[in-house]
């Protein structure tokens, strides 16, 4: 196990180097000149030159790359160009809001989609199954935006069940007062793709030999589904959750933008609009690291869930 972990961590280095190179050259050669963004509209050529000198933009490319790598390794990204807030503080202060919304969303969507998908798999091939599949296709074709716009209008504005939007410094107020509507809408929207996906996981398992054996020894369909199929389908379900896990750090940025929740997703979106490069670069690189670590943990978790899995 230890050897496996070391090798996997070792393999991350080239990928990480690639991410760093991609981000560096993307912003270096395709983005606009940082000095001009920082200088603003009325900057004199002297000011721009001074900023270039200060940022080290006049140095050779490899030296700039080295500065960039040092920033990554020391977690020192300096300050946001737009707000002069230090980038690390910016992330630390925005993360709680993102997690307050995203953790309930992730938990609810998995916990609701599993029974839904099991129920649909139980009646597979029937008219109910097919109607639900058609219904989810139609539900999926409507933009996420429409659900959020209409949901906010009806549930908050017209019926007044929830506040239209808002956020406070108190975690509990946020969780019970402001988070429920965004969470509810996000879960409702993600339910149909999740149910479809989990249904195929269950149907894959239902075709296996052990299910036939279980039927042959006279188990009820219900027992087969709940005891055998569900357990075996947990592996693809876990993989799917792991794939979505890095996403909770950026949050459902659309939800955050829409409901003005001061989370990381909204911050990144604002940074894109303002051309605030340090924020975008930092979040991209660290999220890539988090994604890689989560992938590794998922593979280790397989071993724990399914002893037959050989880590190689």
């Amino acid at each position, binding site marked *: 196990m230890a050897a496996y972990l070391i090798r996997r961590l070792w393999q991350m280095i080239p990928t990480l180097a690639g*991410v760093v190179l*991609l981000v560096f050259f993307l912003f270096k050669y395709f983005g606009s000149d940082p000095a001009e963004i920082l200088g603003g509209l009325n900057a004199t050529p002297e000011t721009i030159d001074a900023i270039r000198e200060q940022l080290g933009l006049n140095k050779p490319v490899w030296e700039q790359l080295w500065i960039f790598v040092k920033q990554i390794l020391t977690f020192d990204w300096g300050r946001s160009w737009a707000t002069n807030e230090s980038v690390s503080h910016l992330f630390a202060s925005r993360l709680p809001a993102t997690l307050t919304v995203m953790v309930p969303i992730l938990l609810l969507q998995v916990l609701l989609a599993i029974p839904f998908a099991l129920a649909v798999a139980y009646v597979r091939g029937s008219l109910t199954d097919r109607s639900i599949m058609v219904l989810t296709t139609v539900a999926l074709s*409507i933009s996420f935006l*429409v659900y959020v716009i209409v949901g906010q209008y009806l549930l908050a504005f017209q019926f007044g069940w929830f506040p239209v939007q808002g956020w406070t410094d108190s975690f509990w107020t946020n969780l019970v007062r402001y988070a429920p509507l965004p969470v509810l809408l996000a879960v409702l929207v993600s339910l149909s793709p999740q149910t479809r996906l989990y249904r*195929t996981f269950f149907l894959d398992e239902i075709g296996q030999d052990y299910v036939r054996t279980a039927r042959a020894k006279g188990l009820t369909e219900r027992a087969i589904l709940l005891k055998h199929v569900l357990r075996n389908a947990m592996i693809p379900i876990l993989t799917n959750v792991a794939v979505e896990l890095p996403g909770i750090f950026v949050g459902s940025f659309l939800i955050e933008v829409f409901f003005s929740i001061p989370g990381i997703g909204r911050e990144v979106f604002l940074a894109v609009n303002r*051309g605030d490069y340090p924020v975008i670069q930092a979040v991209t690189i660290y999220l890539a690291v988090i994604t890689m670590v989560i992938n590794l943990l998922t593979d280790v978790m397989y071993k724990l869930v399914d002893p037959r899995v050989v880590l190689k």
Partner: protein
Amino acid sequence: MSAVLENPVGVPTPATRSDGVWSAAARRFRGDRVGVIALLIVAAFLMLVLAAGAGVVARNWQSEIGVPNAPPTFMGAAAKAEQEAIAQPKGPNVDLSAVDPLAPRYKEWAERAAQFKTAEHARADTLPFGADRLGRDVLAKAIKGAEISILVGVSAALLATFIGTVLGSFGGFFGGRVGDVLEWIYNVFTSIPSILLIFAFAAVTGRGVGSVVLILGLTGWTGIYRLVRAEFMKHSVREYVRSAEAIGASSMSRMFRHILPNVSHVVLVQLSIHVVSFIKAEVILSYLGLGVSVDQVSWGTMLAEAQSELILGHWWQLAAATVFMAVFVTAFSLMTDALRDALDPKLRGAE
């Protein structure tokens, strides 16, 4: 319409020889009623896009032909009550010309203004599908929006498929050093969450249709690469490819003349799947203001406008954009499903 039916999505017309892969697939596709209806709807939309592109319909989508927020015809004209809310002031006008510094120039300005003719064209009180806050026809906007959204979705999907197929075929066919480098690029792109990758690209490219196509194409090729690579690995050791090698076919010829036609069904299905996801992505990018530029309309910009209109009770723009998009995307998804079943019978019934 019939011309489109006879030649669905570029499938070659059946030859007189024995059934090829494509004619067999076309036959299976024709047997799928849902798929055929979906194909008809998609074809109708594509005609609409062509017509809008050629300027036959929705050409004047920017002209303000109705009163602001004119409701759809079936609802009748909006009540005019609130427009007269401010009472006209009564009493004599006070002569301010002694203290008004601009007073000597009023006459000159009035003369200059008289030189310009402003024709006040009649604005309709209602429109078939209503009007937006400037009085522009929502139906024309939805059609023009369809043109942009579908165009972006299809072009971005073509770009992503092209990149994915070329890289995938090289990676799968050659393996070794080339394969390692391509795998490395793939790992780099997939280790960044896709939305962040899109944001990073959006931060450096500007706004506009071209940028959106570029962003989505450059970030969305990884899934196709993976599938095409696996297919090429499988096929490159098959006997027909070895035979081609034996008679002296070059690597390029083996890759693109022998193997590619045999995996083209995978590519086509992927293309189709990506069109749907890129249209959805374009709508979201445009809604956020990272998509098409301000003088263009897409379903996403319509939704962005509709959000503030809805609070005032003007729901028609939201409805038009939603219905157009839902019908097209549903039809396209069902067509994709039918296409996949027809091209790859092994996958039938799977998700």
